[in-house]
């Protein structure tokens, strides 16, 4: 009884922490750590495998750490990649070009379209909104063939266009932004309209600055998808291949390259992690205070 009195008194304080017990936080932390270890274990193994010398990969009993850690696997991977007719820097250039273009254009186009679909009434709005969801649900392996036919008709095969253009309009990205922008109070947009702002300005100066969490999440998705584009099926000349494609190729040569395969996986994994960390920090720094509520 007395305790609940204290509790209610605490709750009266407008501090959000008032109702929180320290025990709850500790329990949450323990739960997250245990589950986190399970999630991390295979990734930890991947990194350990990448720095193990080949002879250590198949010893018994399996070790959870490398006895003589080495960077030889990475060296071998780069050597294999250097053996191609095209200089290594070309792959780096290709990857940067494709990833940057796709990420920027995808975020830019999807945000604008999402704003219109979420907040404007015009003929066709409802249909377009449901087409986006249907496109997400329609997963057919025949699409890739049809996509290839379209690209061939547009003479895009074996050019950068084949890597960049199909990745720009992602229904998932649009859907994500649309869901998030839908939460912006209409009053905010109406106010801007009354002040005489055009749609384009409302989108980028009023709505998008409040959409940092969703936009940063979209950047993570877009970067990850663009970085992992496997160019092998639409681009056949060495000079247009991306880093990811070549690293995967270097890895796919059987057991002798088991170490290289792991090194390639770690190598391909690094840029998305870096982008993830940068973007996620932005998400977390956001403190939502729109000031207007419906």
């Amino acid at each position, binding site marked *: 009884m007395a305790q609940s009195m204290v509790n209610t008194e605490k709750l009266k304080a407008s501090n959000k922490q008032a109702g929180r017990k320290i025990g709850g936080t500790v329990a949450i932390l323990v739960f997250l750590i245990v589950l986190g270890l399970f999630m991390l274990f295979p990734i930890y193994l991947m990194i350990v495998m990448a720095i193990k010398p080949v002879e250590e990969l198949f010893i018994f*009993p399996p070790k959870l750490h490398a006895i003589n850690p080495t960077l030889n696997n990475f060296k071998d991977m780069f050597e294999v990649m250097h053996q191609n007719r095209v200089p290594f820097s070309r792959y780096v250039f290709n990857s940067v070009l494709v990833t940057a273009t796709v990420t920027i254009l995808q975020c830019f186009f999807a945000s604008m379209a999402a704003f219109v*679909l979420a907040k404007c009434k015009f*003929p066709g709005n409802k249909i377009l909104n449901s087409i986006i969801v249907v496109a997400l649900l329609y*997963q057919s392996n025949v699409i890739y063939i049809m*996509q290839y036919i379209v690209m061939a008709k547009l003479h895009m095969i074996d050019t950068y266009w084949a890597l960049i*253009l199909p990745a720009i309009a992602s229904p998932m990205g649009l859907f994500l932004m649309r869901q998030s922008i839908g939460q912006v109070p209409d009053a905010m947009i109406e106010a801007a309209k009354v002040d005489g702002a055009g749609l384009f300005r409302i989108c980028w100066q009023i709505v998008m600055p409040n959409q940092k969490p969703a936009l940063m*999440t979209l950047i993570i998705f877009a970067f990850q998808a663009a970085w992992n584009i496997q160019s092998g099926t639409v681009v056949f000349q060495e000079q247009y291949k991306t880093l990811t494609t070549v690293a995967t190729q270097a890895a796919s040569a059987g057991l002798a390259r088991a170490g290289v395969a792991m090194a390639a996986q770690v190598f391909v994994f690094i840029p998305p992690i870096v982008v993830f*960390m940068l973007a996620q920090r932005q998400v*977390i720094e956001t403190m939502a205070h729109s000031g207007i509520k419906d």
Partner: protein
Amino acid sequence: MAKIAAEDIGKRTKQEERRMMWHSVKQNKACYLMLAPFMLFFLVFTIVPVVMSLPMGFTDFNMAQAPKFIGLSNYTTLFLSDKIFVKSIRVTIVFALFTGPLSYVLCFLLAWLINELHPKLKTLFTLIFYAPSMAPVYTTWQMIFSGDMNGYANSFLINLGLANSPIQWLTDANYVLGVTIIVQLWISLGAGFLALRAGFQNIDRSMYEAGAIEGIRNRWQELIYIVIPSMGPQLMFAAVMQIVSSFTAGTVAQNLVGFPSTDYKAHTIMTHAFDYGWVRYEMGYASAICMILFVVMYLLNKLISKVLSKYMD
């Protein structure tokens, strides 16, 4: 002059309606302009291929010759004589039942729990849980579940005395599906999870404070009265993502337990489509399989959005 029926008075003629429509299209020119860049690429690289692929299910198409129209015979074969397809339906349902709801709840629960932490820990834990989506390392899972004593799972169990001999995780018909489900759950904290994390970040802090004043006593009440009602759109997004990933799962099984898996124990509908599409080049048949899967997912999505919108409003 034409006679006007009594009930038609006050109604617009078709022509007038068309003119009104055209007028409102012109009025919303800015909307269409802002949609145009996305829709252009979406039309060319998604809509056109999808529309082109729709009729494929009614044809016999081996990629070498032009598709030949064969009516519904792909569909009748699927349900009446393809025993493996019927089996794959069962596997897909079991698979989706285990991975779909569980990973959906996990996505939400973890996103929420992480939200309670210090900002530095937030980034760290979000990274840890999302990392498998960035690096789905089937090779290390194969090493963990390797069938000899070298496998981490086996050597762990034998050392503890829980098993006498190595278990054939990846080939024993009893374990194949279970192992696949575990790995699928491991990579399932993907897009839906991140979207929910972003959604939590968007909840106005003052909402919690107001809640505390109005007598919200603990985290559970806060969850039910404040958090869930303001997360509707993100919950919907995560639901769609989770439906897609749990019903179209196939790559995990193919990479982990091989293709085809022992006794078709991990043979999902998508694996079946892969088999006919990319192994046997029977694209028409593969299209029909995908079409059935699409209809199921579409209906499920309708159902879930109905349920969710009921709780949101």
